[in-house]
């Protein structure tokens, strides 16, 4: 088998075993318990919550992101191993939603990290979340979920946007380190 067939096979095998990083921001986290537990039961898709980013494949950004949270989101996203997928959750990640004029939340998540699937709604129902999972499986199958490749390819543009939002360079992470000490 050549490399292309191998990667196709790997995609088919891995799409039914996606582990989700357990990182909840904003109010979208409220819709996750019914999805994860017995009512809607996301484990029948082979999806499971995982506490460490090193072992996770899917990142659900559940709702609005303050600039302070975005720093953590970028750190977590960069810690996840390839291939990794991002689902933008609710209208806040699309255009800011009801926080469109807030001084402290970002408006468009895809400017800072690549997003594979967006779910519209404020809040999206669990059915919509499950639908986005199926959409993501479909995209993985066809090889369209290539956000993680885009992050490598346009790394300088993503980094430039992140630094503009943070108002300082991400390399100088002394603020975050000082917080950890406390």
């Amino acid at each position, binding site marked *: 088998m050549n490399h292309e067939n191998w990667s196709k096979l790997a995609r088919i095998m891995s799409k039914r075993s996606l582990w989700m990083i357990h990182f909840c921001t904003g109010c979208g986290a409220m819709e996750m318990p019914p999805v994860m537990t017995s009512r809607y039961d996301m484990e029948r898709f082979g999806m499971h919550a995982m506490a460490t980013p090193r072992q996770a494949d899917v990142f659900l950004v559940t709702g609005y992101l303050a600039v302070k949270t975005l720093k953590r989101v970028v750190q977590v996203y960069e810690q996840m191993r390839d291939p990794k997928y991002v689902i933008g959750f609710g209208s806040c990640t699309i255009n800011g939603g009801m926080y469109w004029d*807030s001084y402290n939340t970002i*408006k468009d998540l895809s400017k800072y990290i690549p997003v594979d699937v967006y779910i519209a709604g404020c809040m999206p129902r669990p059915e919509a979340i499950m639908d986005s999972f199926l959409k993501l499986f479909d995209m993985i199958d066809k090889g369209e979920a290539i956000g993680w490749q*885009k992050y490598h390819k346009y790394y300088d543009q993503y980094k430039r946007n992140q630094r503009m939002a943070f108002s300082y360079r991400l390399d100088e992470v002394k603020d975050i380190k000082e917080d950890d000490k406390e």
Partner: protein
Amino acid sequence: MMAKELFPEAQEIRKGRIRIETQKDKVGEIIKKLKDNGYEHFVMLSCVDWIKEGKFELVYQMWSYQYKEHVMISIKINRDGESMLSMRHLFPQIETYEREIHEMFGVNFIGNPNLKEFILEGWPHMPPMRKDFDTEKFVKDFYYKIPEVKEE
């Protein structure tokens, strides 16, 4: 003793709600006196921006479980850089309220060692809760100016 007996100049807005308007150098002794007389709960410290008067109003709110009474101690300081004495030696939780007001309004509290950034990280702009901070303009100039990632 109830607040009305301790401070005759206090005005009663309605039953169980007392307001004391005072000067900034008397706040410490008023809080101390109330604390010694049964008003043992410090509820919160809030700040109001009266931009037309050019003043910040600081409101220290206290509650008594014994008398079921809410006392508000209100002072006004100048908007342009007047500082206030810290009250953290009376109630330690005031330190956090002062830290928040320092960040959101830019009021300086003398004697508070912990006035570092609280919620906003690395915020180089004007304190955002001031009335002269134009939120909509700021958002348009800042977030909407960040370019989209161009794919070739």
